[in-house]
């Protein structure tokens, strides 16, 4: 079966773990050291779906921001879907995700996305109320808990989004 390419953007506030999630997914690596992303970093990974179909994911790891500016918006062109990353230990990043999702929808239209509550390994420092998460899920959001450090939910999240992007075509 022929391989298809899908552009996937990683979006979210700074230091929520976007780069670490890509590193875990693409290279099975993790570093505790925080290194901020400037502009955008592009990686690729080809995955096999349970249907047998191969998808080459072009991963655009966009610099963290709490609002969509012109530079960030220029990176979104042609995206088939996006991962909206939130740091579970910092509540303001949840609010940023809500704002970013609205702005991205205005820019791209309704594209598949998955919200990732990252840093699930630090659950004792969690600042995001479970009820808040459930309310947002009831509004149609797909929300998964991930940890780039332990690998929890990472593979599943990318796979889930890849399938969602194929279903929309």
């Amino acid at each position: 079966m022929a391989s298809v390419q899908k552009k996937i953007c990683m979006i979210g506030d700074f230091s929520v773990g976007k780069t670490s999630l890509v590193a875990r997914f693409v290279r099975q690596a993790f570093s505790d050291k925080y290194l901020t992303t400037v502009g955008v970093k592009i990686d690729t990974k080809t995955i096999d779906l349970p249907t047998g179909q191969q998808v080459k994911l072009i991963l655009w790891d966009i610099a963290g921001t709490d609002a969509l500016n012109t530079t960030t918006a220029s990176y979104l062109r042609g995206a088939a879907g996006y991962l909206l990353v939130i740091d579970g230990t910092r509540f303001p990043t949840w609010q940023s995700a809500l704002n970013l999702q609205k702005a991205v929808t205005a820019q791209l239209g309704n594209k598949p996305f998955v919200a990732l509550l990252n840093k699930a390994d630090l659950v004792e420092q969690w600042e995001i109320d479970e009820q808040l998460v459930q309310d947002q899920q009831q509004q149609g959001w797909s929300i998964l808990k991930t940890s780039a450090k332990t690998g929890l939910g990472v593979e599943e999240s990318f796979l889930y989004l890849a399938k969602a992007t194929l279903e929309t075509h």
Partner: protein
Amino acid sequence: MSVIPTHISQHICSMWMAETIMTYLRIDEHHNLIDWGGHPVHYGLSELTSGQSATDSLYFLEGMLTVPHTQILKFVRIGNDRSAHIHIIPFEREIWVILIDATEEHDQTQAMQQQLNELSILTYRQTQLLQDLEITRQTLQSEKQHLEKASQLKSQFIATLSHELRSPLTSIVDSADLLKTLQQTQLQEEKYLQSVQKNAQHLLGLIDNLLNQAQLEIGQTVLQPVNYEIELLADNLKTLFLSTALKKGLQFQVEVNVGMPRRLTLDPLRFQQILINLISNALKFTQQGSVQVQLYWQAPDRLYFKVTDTGQGISQETQQTLFMPFQRGEDAKNLSGTGLGLAISHQLVNLMQGNLTVTSTLGQGTVFQGYIQVGLVHSPLVSNIHTNHLKVLVVDDSPEFCALMENYLREGGYGVLIAENGEKAIQLALEEQPCLVLMDVHLPGINGYAASQELRKQRFNQPIIAISASALPQDRKYAFEVGCQQYLIKPISSNHLLEEIKRLII
């Protein structure tokens, strides 16, 4: 400003191009790669083929080629850790993609951004810590105020209690002195003895309240539910309060409504205590009119009570803290009392899974009403039992206590057997088979617990009431474990004793 001549601008352009690591890629209208120039390997783009789909080898262009006008993507890192500004320029049906190396600029910007982001996170964490500290500080402050208030109330309470204890004690001492030193007529002696008895009872009530409050506070109060005739309770209340009410010229009624089951499973002493506190309070603060008590039943398991008075009423402010221990309203400051009665009643009602509320209008009166959860007993009531052929064995090493019990029992129509120690108690019980044994637990030789245990071993099946001066829950529990049916604490009133015996032998 003058226009830069073409020659000069070409010179600047060639100089800039010479110093810039630049790569270009030319793509046709079908998005196939035509050719390229510059340094594609710089970005890891080593396998380029003319005529093939550009996005196959230039993956970063996926979705980016449909552009109506020039697009600039700044700081795109696409391989070999190189960063470039990418310009996508539609030109005469073709698309030119220009990559201008920006690695150095990227690294400088990153270092600056890194510092800003780290500072921002530190500030956030610091703010959170300060907020947590503030919450902890407020909690501690609130706890401190609470403890200060509690301490103040306890101090006030001790002051009140000292006064409350001193007054009856002085009276007792004075009366005893008079009895000892003066030659009095029998009538006067009786008067002084009544005074001693009344004041001693008052002191006992105060101490009982203190113990009750302490036990309720530490959660040690255990209910002792038994089958109980509710009419007995009503009669007791009338006996206890009618004379006080009459002395004040008040009407006093205790009414058991139609539909009340004859017997209920409840802790009669504790329920009576609730009502005694409410009625005492009502009588204390009512100068004219009436105090009415109503008891009514609501199936399946609620015993409602209502104490209505036509007294001075309670202000809204006082009502707020009425059920808190050691609280005394302004109106009560000059009257005797410790501020524990209503608190105890409230806590006991809660313990019985019920509810107690107050409604009051100043100058018109007050209504305390509520309910407790009880069990219903479907057994026929035996109201008149013939006791004159029944013998009760009293076991106590104190001849005075034995004499007192004998008086009570004979008044109730019972025959009496006396044993002063455990050994004799066992012998008499087995020989005479009394209908009930009153067993003091602290006896010389075989103590009351061991004697009870032995009697049960010897298949003595009649009820045993343990008697002790200890109010400790563990002593009560142990008495039940060794085979006693009831545990009574000294001193014991005649009515209470006879009621318990009646209840156990029916």
